[in-house]
């Protein structure tokens, strides 16, 4: 098929404005698509040409920002990363991600998710404040050490894994695969010293032990992150700590570098 050849496809779209409507409904639109049209392109075409009231969230259009996750034909997918014709279906069903509060139509509320993320301190924690403020070198990291966490660092926070997780569906306090993967990404980073600080949250009743390891999360991840594996590795780290007293925080060597010497200007209130 040439790229330009257009085919008419039916879109069945979930519509709901909880502020003024009592129950959701489905609305149908017909859109002409070609081989390169993504679901996001089609939705934007509907918005531009047929129904400007349709609410969608997106930003990068290239599977980087994680904004456009939605249920496409009942599966969690990025709208900007899914071509309409590759779905091989005459009717494309589009709905908001499951397991989230709906703001409007296809836009879901990630606020609770990001609040949970804050609890696991998703950043590198170090205690050598002087070195951080006036760097004299760089922290040594071997290739092996990098490979241990790089896969988990690829997460774009699209929240689709949480949407596919059966435990997140029943237990609203469960941290969920996205957050647990974030926690493991930093715990397994050799520069991080915050393992103990994160324990209270990840080793709680609603932390990583609630995972059933069905791996639905990894199956829908558009970046191949494999959060289910991160959770299993996190459990190993927790058992090592609880039973053998071995912490996952490691000592990292500082390689002195003359040329990066200098004082960092930090915002007020940081000290």
């Amino acid at each position, binding site marked *: 098929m040439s790229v330009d050849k257009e085919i008419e496809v039916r879109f069945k779209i979930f519509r709901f404005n909880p502020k003024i409507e009592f129950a959701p409904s489905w609305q149908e639109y017909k859109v002409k698509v070609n081989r390169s049209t993504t679901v996001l392109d089609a939705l934007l075409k509907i918005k531009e040409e047929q129904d400007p009231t349709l609410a969608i969230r997106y930003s990068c259009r290239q599977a980087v920002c994680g904004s456009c996750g939605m249920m496409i034909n009942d599966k969690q997918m990025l709208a900007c990363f899914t071509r309409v014709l590759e779905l091989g279906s005459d009717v494309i069903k589009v709905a908001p991600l499951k397991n989230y509060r709906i703001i409007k139509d296809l836009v879901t509320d990630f606020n609770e998710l990001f609040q949970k993320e804050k609890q696991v301190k998703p950043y590198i924690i170090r205690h050598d404040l002087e070195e951080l403020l006036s760097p004299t070198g760089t922290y040594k990291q071997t290739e092996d050490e990098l490979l241990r966490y790089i896969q988990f660092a690829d997460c774009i926070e699209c929240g689709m894994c949480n949407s596919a997780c059966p435990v997140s569906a029943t237990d609203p306090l469960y941290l969920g695969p996205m957050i647990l993967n974030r926690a493991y990404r930093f715990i397994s980073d050799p520069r991080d010293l915050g393992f103990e600080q994160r*324990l209270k949250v990840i080793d709680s009743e609603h932390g990583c032990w609630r995972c059933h390891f069905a791996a639905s999360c990894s199956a829908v991840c558009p970046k191949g992150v494999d959060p289910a594996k991160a959770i299993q590795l996190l459990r190993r780290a927790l058992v090592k700590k609880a039973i053998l007293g071995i912490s996952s925080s490691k000592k990292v060597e500082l390689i002195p570098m003359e040329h990066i010497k200098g004082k960092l200007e930090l915002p007020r209130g940081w000290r």
Partner: protein
Amino acid sequence: MKESKRMFLHYISGIIILVTGFIHLIANNLPDIGTIIHESALYPVNLIMLLSALTYHMLNGVRVILIELIPGRCAAKAITWIMFLVGIALYIYGLQVFLNLFWPVE
């Protein structure tokens, strides 16, 4: 107790159930080895270990299911305590049955 310790015990008790359950089955179904086991201290010790592991494994499993189904941090604490108390009661009852069985009071 931390959740990791509770779950570690859950896995360990699962393994103990497999081993002691196997010994229990052999003791009751293979006449030759069964008689030797029955006449040794292994039989009551094995049964008490099976009872301990089963009580823990079963009630911790129920606790995990309930925590998932009943949201709320306070609910999780309450469920843990209730299961703990039910566990103690069941264990005492089971031990008393075994004591009566193996060392009956005349």
